């Protein structure tokens, strides 16, 4: 579909088995179409090289629509695009290694609000099984995600100074992890995450690497309340539920309150939480039935006392031993 109007309304349409290099069903840029409203529409079995619906500098309202059985990512917008998704159903999607964000990819200062959506049965050979963000803002309210497989961030992945807000949503049956964030601000409220299927997924893909349910690397602001993470067993060495790593951040702030961590495990450190910084505030949380080797529920590591040695300093010789006991005091 070529578009030459500034406003496009798509209502009660059916896009089936279309193919194109970019935007196999629909592609829009600002100079041709600035606003798109899509509702009561089905996108099914479209294929191609990039995405089913794509665009840049565009505002998209997407409601009461189904996106199913496509072999490329469903929605890909970039460059200050604004998206609103409401009451949509995304299902039965398979994406290749080159397709970050199997359903939605958002980059370069774009915004998206998802209010009321169901995602079911996604198999991605790349990152961000449901949604992948770069330098963009995401707000999710009332999202249900079930049965999602990817290589990292099976449900949500946010990178490069993205802002992510997730409220009143649930995520279940994911592998290897649920969410992955780096260099992003994270706020979550009333989110329920349970039942990793990593153990099943690794049977068919032995090279799959386990991970914490939520990984947050260099996230300056983490505010989490009423989060429930349950039943994630033995998929990583660090932090069965949360892995929080902070480096080169001046004043990171992490607050986790009124949350429940139940029956999570890590192979080594922090059955529920691993954090390498002391700037974590925990208020009113419940930790139950978590296990690890060190820190059954929580393991606090730290950044301090990393010592760098110039090579011309004193040497200590170590002979024929892999573990050396030294009394230095």
């Amino acid at each position, binding site marked *: 579909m070529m578009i030459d109007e500034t406003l496009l309304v798509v209502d009660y349409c059916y896009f089936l088995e279309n193919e194109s290099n970019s935007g196999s069903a629909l592609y829009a840029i600002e100079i041709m179409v600035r606003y798109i409203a899509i509702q009561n529409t089905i996108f099914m079995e479209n294929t191609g090289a990039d995405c089913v619906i794509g665009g840049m500098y565009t505002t998209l309202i997407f409601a009461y629509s189904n996106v199913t059985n496509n072999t490329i990512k469903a929605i890909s917008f970039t460059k200050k695009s604004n998206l609103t998704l409401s009451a949509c159903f995304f299902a039965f999607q398979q994406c290749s290694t080159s397709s970050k964000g199997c359903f939605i990819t958002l980059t370069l200062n774009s915004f998206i609000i998802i209010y009321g959506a169901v995602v079911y049965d996604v198999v991605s050979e790349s990152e961000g099984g449901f949604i992948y963000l770069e330098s963009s803002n995401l707000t999710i309210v009332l999202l249900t995600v079930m049965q999602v497989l990817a290589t990292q961030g099976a449900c949500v992945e946010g990178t490069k100074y993205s802002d992510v807000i997730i409220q009143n949503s649930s995520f279940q049956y994911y592998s290897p992890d649920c969410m992955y964030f780096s260099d992003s601000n994270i706020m979550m409220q009333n989110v329920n995450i349970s039942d990793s299927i990593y153990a099943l997924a690794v049977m068919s893909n032995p090279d799959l690497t386990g991970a914490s349910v939520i990984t947050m690397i260099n996230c300056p602001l983490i505010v989490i309340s009423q989060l429930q993470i349950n039943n994630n067993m033995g998929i990583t060495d660090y932090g069965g539920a949360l892995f929080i790593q902070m480096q080169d951040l001046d004043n990171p702030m992490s607050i986790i309150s009124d949350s429940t961590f139940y029956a999570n495990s890590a192979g080594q450190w922090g059955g529920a939480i691993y954090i390498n910084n002391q700037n974590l505030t925990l208020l009113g949380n419940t930790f139950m039935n978590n296990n690890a080797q060190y820190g*059954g529920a929580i393991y606090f590591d730290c950044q301090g006392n990393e010592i760098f040695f110039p090579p011309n300093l004193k040497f200590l010789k170590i002979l024929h031993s892999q573990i050396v006991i030294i009394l230095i005091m």
Partner: protein
Amino acid sequence: MSFNTFSNNIASIEGGAFKYVETAPVFLTQNNVFVGETNNAIYGPNYAAYSVKMRLKIFEPLGDDINLAKMSIFFLTGKRYYFFEKLKTIPYCMILQ
């Protein structure tokens, strides 16, 4: 004040509920509830706070590769012990406190 509640958490070695390295986290000094004797570990059924871990950068004498090993300090029966983990085949290291 909201309480953090820890119950039935298990560490097979240290810190049944939690373990920290070096400085105690702020929340440790605030209100936490360890339910009964349900948390379990060999050292520190509720929390382990008696070991300190330092990091050393290890240099191989004839190469440019930099490896990271860990030196732990443990207090056992009133004595302080240091030991290296994962040094394996590196023949030399340098130590500075």
